[in-house]
């Protein structure tokens, strides 16, 4: 049986109290939310915080709020709540889709959106969808707050711009422009309890239903140290009229944007081929939704 090491546990009752505790403990404390990643790493001995700080008594971190056509999601909202939320399904269906493929039903009932972001795993399930949606992370530190676009949040496997003493409190998703569609595909060996071999999220915005592409976003996951935009593919799509040939061209460009490794889950060459296939597939579906009747978001 895997045992946990010794540590202290604090349950501050407000955010200012939590920030004070964290700043006092400096780097020796970690925030525990769902614990589905943290407790595993502590059992395996890869993380040894002297103190865990739970924010379960802090109010205002567990809400999904619709704001001016967009969404604000509290960092402690669970992945199951996101997968099942009618609001998320309407405003950001691509996020609901990626949430419903994370871990297992048991994991989703504990895991939180904030935890899935701050652990900064290269194959994390939610960041690709959040990045194509243009999401921003709200960080609160002792006496200051700042908002960081998710595009510039991750700095490497397990590392991000979050500083010691800072807490991720919410994630904001702006409203999507009209004629926008998005899609996400996670490739794994099985449907549950799987870490992506490759995952791709794409979003297209058209000038009008039969018009040119005015905005293209493609995010590749598990094929670089962090989730990345397929920059040259995005550039090749912008201003162009959608077609199968254009999507095929963008897909081959996306392959040149990533730098996959070979590991137990898949070879680098296989991953490149899958990037090509999944970029084409997600673009085709995103275009279909963008040009369709559906109002609402991506």
């Amino acid at each position, binding site marked *: 049986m895997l045992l*946990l090491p010794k*540590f202290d*546990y604090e*349950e501050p009752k407000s955010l200012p109290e939590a920030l004070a505790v964290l700043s006092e403990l400096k780097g020796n404390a970690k925030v525990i939310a769902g614990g589905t990643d943290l*407790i595993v790493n502590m059992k395996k001995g890869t993380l040894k915080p002297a103190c865990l700080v739970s924010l379960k008594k802090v109010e205002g971190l567990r809400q999904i709020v619709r704001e001016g056509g967009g969404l604000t999601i509290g960092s402690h909202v669970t992945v199951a709540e996101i997968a099942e939320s009618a609001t998320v399904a309407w405003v950001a269906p691509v996020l609901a889709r990626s949430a419903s493929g994370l*871990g297992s*039903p*048991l*994991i989703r009932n504990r895991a939180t959106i904030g935890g899935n972001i701050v652990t900064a795993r290269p194959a994390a399930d939610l960041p690709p969808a959040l990045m194509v949606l243009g999401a921003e992370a709200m960080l609160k530190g002792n006496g200051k707050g700042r908002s960081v676009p998710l595009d510039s949040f991750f700095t490497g496997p397990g590392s991000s711009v979050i500083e010691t003493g800072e807490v991720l409190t919410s994630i904001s998703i702006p409203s999507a422009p009209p004629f926008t569609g998005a899609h996400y595909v996670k490739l794994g060996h099985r449907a549950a309890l799987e870490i992506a071999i490759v995952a791709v999220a794409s979003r297209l915005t058209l000038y009008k239903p039969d018009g040119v592409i005015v905005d293209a976003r493609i995010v590749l996951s598990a094929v670089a140290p962090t989730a990345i935009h397929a920059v040259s593919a995005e550039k090749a799509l912008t201003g162009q009229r959608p077609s199968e040939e254009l999507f095929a061209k963008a897909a081959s460009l996306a392959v040149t944007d990533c730098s996959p490794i070979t590991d137990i889950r898949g070879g680098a060459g296989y991953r490149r081929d899958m990037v090509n296939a999944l970029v084409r597939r997600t673009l085709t579906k995103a275009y279909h939704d963008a040009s369709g009747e559906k109002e609402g978001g991506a």
Partner: protein
Amino acid sequence: MKKLITLTVNERVYEVAVAPGRTLTQLLRDDLNLLGTKEGCGVGDCGACTVILDGKPVNSCLVLAVQADGSTIKTIEGVAIGDSLHPVQETFVEMGAIQCGFCTPGMILSATSLLEKTPHPTEQEVRQALSGNLCRCTGYQKIVEAVQEASRRMKK
């Protein structure tokens, strides 16, 4: 340092002093002597430790006992109604959905939780609801059939 927590397990209130490093699985098994909850992998992959925490099935090996302070928990010991088995327990026994039995408590809790939310699930919905619970014996077919049969019996 140990913390004093209060929690309700199978409709009984317990007040326990626990160290922060104890998981909910350990609390249930070692302190409350509720041995129906099993520990398999200990890292959230197998689902043997499934319990219902505030209405939702979770891996109790990934919940700290201190995190469960103030919570309401149902374990496999709380599923039967008095001396009569829950329909899901009945069909598991009758239809060969139990072989070695190690995954059974978790399977039954995930299944009863599904049927409370979705009384008439499709086969796909049953398989999805049980996708966090691994069984090395049955090949799942008889488990899925037992859950579907329980759903039919509960309709009556």
